[in-house]
Each structure stands twice: as structure tokens, then as C-alpha cells.
């Protein structure tokens, strides 16, 4: 028996709804968890709504934890991420342009190295990086996080793809005929056209930097310099439910609702950046997909 087009659409819709529920249920649970007390979280229905006052309590408890540590963690994350993104863009855009549109000895080798480092797990490089940073006395300084963050081979590769597939070589040749030197060609022709890929590289670099846990965990020793991802681990270990063998953690005012709120606060910057950059990101991702 052959299923009708309508039946296939219904099946497709059910599958899509199933996947939507699968991915959204945990998010909704986390959102609702912030409105409950710890006891309600374990005794009431998983999707029951608490009260605004519980949310306010969780907010105060979270931001009061260890003398406003959360604010400091967020500030540090912002410094590391924006610092890393700024240098990554400054390095990746010209590098991708050079690899895509210029000829020089070792170009292919450099491209191959970029690809290899791109697929290498970032955590594998953390220990050599630690030793390197230590040799120049930069451990436990923000530079120990920002400089490795600024090394972003994926961004170089994205730029390489963009420049090699989107910018017509004839356009660059025309600029040279009109008197532009190589810097001028890059500065006045290629770079203005690269806006979508700049946004794309910035977004991916920001997400990678903001969510990085292991590098700052190894590089940073001082509390005052910790980013939010490492701070979250301290919150978890300070929550009685996750560290029951440690009497007294419950008295520290951080319970599961505060932890759920901390997760939302920690991902909020990425969500905000994504919302504002969405249109540009789509443009960047589609750049070079078609030729007209």
C-alpha cells in the first residue's frame, strides 16, 4: 500500500514534534526549576510552575554566593572571550585571505597544518600550552587564557573558504589595474565584502571561548580571575545534592534551583549574541553556496 502525500506529511510532523519535545523538555525543566524551592523541585511535578518569589530568592542567593563571585566570573569570562575573539579576528581574516587569494611558497603546507590543528581536540593542547605559558611567566594571568583563545584555526579555514569561493578574482584584478596595491586590495575590496564571515568567525570564536572550561581551569589559579564555566563547577560542589558527603554545603544557600539559574545566566550571553547576529550568521554560512 502506498502512503499518500498527506500521510507522509503527518508522519513527518509527528517526528519533528517528537524531536522538538526531546530537545525542549530539558530546557523547559531548567527554566521552571528556577521558580521552585529545592524541596518543590524534588516533590512537585517536573513541569509545575513555582512562584516569582522563589525565582527572586534563587537570584539573590546565586549572586550572593561567595560575596558576589558570580558577577566576577561573568566579567572575567567576558574579558577572556572578547579579548580572544578580537585577536582571533585580527589574525584569522588576513590569514584566510592570504591562503585563498595569494600565492607563496608553503601555502599548501600551511593550509594542511591549519586543517590538522583544526581537527585536533583543544584539550590535547592544554598541557603543552600550560608549560609554554609558564615558561614566559604568564600562568595565572588573563593572557594565559586570551592568547590560546586567539589561536582559532577554524576561523582561518572559514575565511579561506569564503575568500576562495565568494570573491571573484577578476574583481581583485580590476582593483589592481585601477592602482590598488596588495594592501589596498585587501583593505578596500576584500575586507568590506567579508562582513558575513567576520560575524561568523566572531560568533564561533565567542561560543568556543565562552564555553571553554579546561583551559582556564588549568591556567588560572586565583579565584578573582576565574571564568563562569569554572565557577559553575564550584557551585556544583557547593550544592548538597551533588556533594552530600560534605556537611554544611546546604547552609551555603546554593541549592538545585540556584544551580539551574546559574546555568541560564551562564548561557545567556551566547543566546543574546546569537539572537542579534542571526541574520548575519545565515548570510555568512550561505556565502559561496551559489554562483550567479
Amino acid at each position, binding site marked *: 500500500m502506498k502512503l499518500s502525500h498527506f500521510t507522509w506529511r503527518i508522519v513527518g510532523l509527528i517526528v519533528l514534534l517528537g524531536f522538538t519535545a526531546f530537545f525542549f523538555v530539558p530546557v523547559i525543566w531548567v527554566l521552571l526549576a528556577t521558580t521552585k524551592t529545592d524541596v518543590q523541585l524534588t*516533590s512537585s511535578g517536573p513541569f509545575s510552575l513555582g512562584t516569582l518569589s522563589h525565582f527572586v530568592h534563587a537570584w539573590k542567593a546565586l549572586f550572593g554566593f561567595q560575596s558576589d563571585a558570580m558577577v566576577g566570573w561573568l566579567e572575567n569570562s567576558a574579558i577572556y572571550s572578547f579579548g580572544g575573539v578580537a585577536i582571533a579576528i585580527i589574525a584569522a581574516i588576513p590569514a584566510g585571505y592570504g591562503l585563498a587569494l595569494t600565492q607563496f611558497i608553503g601555502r599548501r603546507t600551511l593550509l594542511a597544518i591549519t586543517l590538522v590543528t583544526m581537527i585536533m581536540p583543544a584539550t590535547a593542547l592544554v598541557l603543552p600550552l600550560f608549560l609554554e605559558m609558564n615558561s614566559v611567566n604568564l600562568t595565572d594571568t588573563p593572557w594565559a587564557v*586570551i592568547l590560546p583563545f586567539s589561536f582559532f584555526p577554524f576561523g582561518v579555514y572559514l575565511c579561506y573558504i569564503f575568500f576562495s569561493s565568494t570573491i571573484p578574482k577578476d574583481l581583485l584584478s580590476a582593483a589592481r589595474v585601477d592602482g590598488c596595491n596588495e594592501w589596498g586590495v585587501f583593505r578596500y575590496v576584500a575586507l568590506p*565584502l567579508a562582513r558575513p564571515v567576520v560575524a561568523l568567525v566572531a560568533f564561533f570564536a565567542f561560543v568556543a571561548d565562552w564555553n571553554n572550561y579546561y583551559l582556564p581551569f588549568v591556567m588560572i589559579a586565583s579565584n578573582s580571575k576565574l571564568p563562569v564555566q569554572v565557577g559553575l563547577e564550584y557551585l556544583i560542589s557547593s550544592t548538597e545534592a551533588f556533594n552530600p558527603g*560534605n556537611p554544611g554545603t546546604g547552609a551555603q544557600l546554593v541549592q538545585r534551583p540556584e544551580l539551574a539559574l546559574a546555568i541560564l545566566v551562564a548561557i545567556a550571553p551566547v543566546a543574546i549574541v546569537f539572537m542579534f547576529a542571526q541574520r548575519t550568521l545565515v548570510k555568512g554560512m550561505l556565502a559561496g553556496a551559489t554562483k550567479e
Partner: protein
Amino acid sequence: MNIYRSSGGGNRRTRWHRRTLAVAACASLVSLSIVSAGIGATGASAAKKPTITIWYDTARKSMVQAYIKAHPKVHVVAVLKDGDSNGDGTYQSAFALDNRVGHGWPDIYFSEQNNDAASLAQAPFNDAAVLNKGLISKSTLAKFAHGSAALCTIGGKVYCLRNDLAMNVLWYNPTLMAQDGITSVPTTWQQWATDGALAAAKGDIIGTQGDSWDADTYYWGNECPLSQETSPGTLLINPASTNCTAMASLLDGVSRTALPVAYMFSSTFGQQYGGKIVFYPGASWMGGVFPGLGSCTSANPDCKMAAGYPLTFSSSGPAVTGAIGGGLWFVSSHSKNLKLAASAVVWLDTSLTSQNLSPGFPAYGPDDAPWVATQDASGSYATPLSGQPTLSQAFNKAANEIWSGWSAVPYANDQIWASDVVPSLATGGTQAAGLGIFASDAANLARSDGFQVHS
């Protein structure tokens, strides 16, 4: 010639480009200036004082603050850590790096991980300093509860000080006992198991099996040799010992209604068992936890528990108990000011000012009475039944009955139990079978850590 300046679109792009460059430059400058200024820079006056670095966990914050207040002539760099909790190896990772680069160690640190002495005192970390060879006086060490140094002692050398004890007592709920027809608080494991039938008839429970700390409660509490270092580098793991098999047999004889496979801090435990716990053999810190479970509230007197003496296996059995948790203070052997570091640890671990801020029962004997008085006044505990010990009596007796034959090892016994035995119990396996699983896995880990294992 500038090909973009000839068109309106080009002007917009140029303006965008300039704005982008300006924003990027500003962002870089701001971040660089902040970086250069140094986040959390310390004042110049700090350099003139002797300095010690303290790694502490959340629950020890107030104690460290008290130390700073009481020692204005010492510059303290207080660093919040996770306390090496749940066997995550934070300290081991940090010391491996510090040893490699030759700096970065703290002077003193607090660990929630009871087996940390076994790893941090030995290669490749070699960080914990020996405390009983001149750093801390013997008279001070003698005032700690009997057996409290067992987890800190390796080959006669004491590598840490217990901050608080988490000795097991028998928690009982007087209201539920009356409702279930249980007339007296059990003193032996056999009586406790018999009472399980009465509790089960009313849907109540007398404990759990399925927590990572099962072995600490039932087997450590009956001198079962599952983690006994008989001589340096030699470990006795003997699940066939009568002390182990008798306890396993007793536990297997209790119905699963009375002794369910359940984890106290799971999301469903409170809903399922809150207000139904008539007995619970467990750590001293648990007394304050029961009232907050699920359907219990802190205002509900029916959920409050009183502490009884630890159970013995029979009326003539060994008067011992186990422990779940508790914390340790270490002095780093890499400290450049060992005397100051040792004195700081002694102050944190023995002064009443500090210990009154400790959430756990102080291991240092002279601080016990005032600490218990504070707990008693908190209203978190039920009034003991007639003829039963006070909180102070129960805690003090239990504190001195912790069996010293349960040695610290570099691997985490709790994790073996949680990952390998609990799944077996949850699928209908017996405690007797669980003992075999635990012993086999522990022996493998012990051998990989260089122990000679015998049974």
C-alpha cells in the same frame, strides 16, 4: 583611486568597516588595559607580611575568614576550590602541574576527599607534609578523637588533620517508632533488622541500600576488611571474612520494602520516603538533612530524628562504627613557611572560634561539647526517648568508635560501590554478590596503584 568611495554602497561599507575597526580596537584596548592592571591585584602592603595561601571549599569559608580576622599580621591568599570533592581529582591535577613547573602549590588546603592522604602523600604528587615529626606537637595530636587519624596515617606518619568527623550513629524517629509499634531503640543490627518487618508493614523504612556510602555504613561498621592496610603497601581485601558475610546475610534478610535500594539525594527520594524514615544508620551530619526531605518540612516535628548509639553486630560484637565524609586539613610540603602553615592548620582545626563555625562534628575533642550544644539549640533534632543518649552522648561515643581498620587508599571505595555494586543491587542482586563485585574491582585498582593485595 578608491573604487568604493565612488558609490553610496561603498561609503556605507567603508563606514561599517571603520566602525568595526574602531570597536575592535576599543575592545582590545579595554581588555588589554584591564589585563595589564591585573584582576584582583593585591595591595603593596601585603608584601611586607608573611604570606600563606589557603585552598578552601565553600563550607570552610567562614573558618578561613575567622583566621584572617584573628591574624592581622599574616597576609592570607584565600582561594576557593571544590575541596577535591567526589573524587574528581582537582588537587591531583593541580599538583601534577605545579610539580612540573616548580611553583603554584598552596601552603595549606582543605580536602573533602577522605582518601586524599593516600594519594597526595605519595608519588607522583608528594605534596602532603608529615605532621607528627615536629610540625605539630604530640600533645595536640593526642586530643583528636580516637581513630580519627587513621585515614591520615601511612606507615606511622600523619599527613593530615581531621577537621570534622562524620561518624555513623543510629538515627531514629520517635514518632514513627510509636506509630509502627516499635517499643525500643535497637542496639544491635539484628534488632534493627527485626524491626524492619514492623516498619515495612506500615510502609516505613529502616535505612537504604543503594547509596555510594553503603560500604562505609554496613561493612566499615562491622570491622569487615575490605580496605585494610596491614603493613605499608599491603592491603587486605577479604569479602569472605565472617564480619563481611554475616553483615551481607543480615542485610539480604531484610525486606526491600524496609531497606529499599534508593539514593537519599536523588530527585525522587524525598517524595517517596520523606516522613517514612523510622531508622537510618548514617553519618552525624544527616540529622539536619532528614527534616528537609520531600514531604517533610523543617516545621514538621514528625520528620525530626534523634541520635542513638551506633549499632553493634550482636550484644558481644565489636563496638565500632564507620564514617561518611568529614574533611581533612593538609600542610603542603612545598610551603616556604612550614611553621606558619602548620600553625594555621592547628588554629583552623582546634580553636573554638574556628570549630564553632564548622558544619561537622569537630575531630578535636575539646571543641566537641560547645559545638554539640549549638546543634542541640538549633531545634533540628527530635527529643531523645527516655533512657536514650543525648545528642552529645551519642556523638561522643560514636566519634571514639570509628574503626581504624578501614584504611585510606588512593582510589575511591565509594565510587566502586556506586558504579559497580549499586547497579547490581538495583537489578535484584544481593549484598553477598555485591561484596564479591566490590572486592574484585577494589583489588584490581589496588594492584594498579602498587599494592600487594591479599585476602
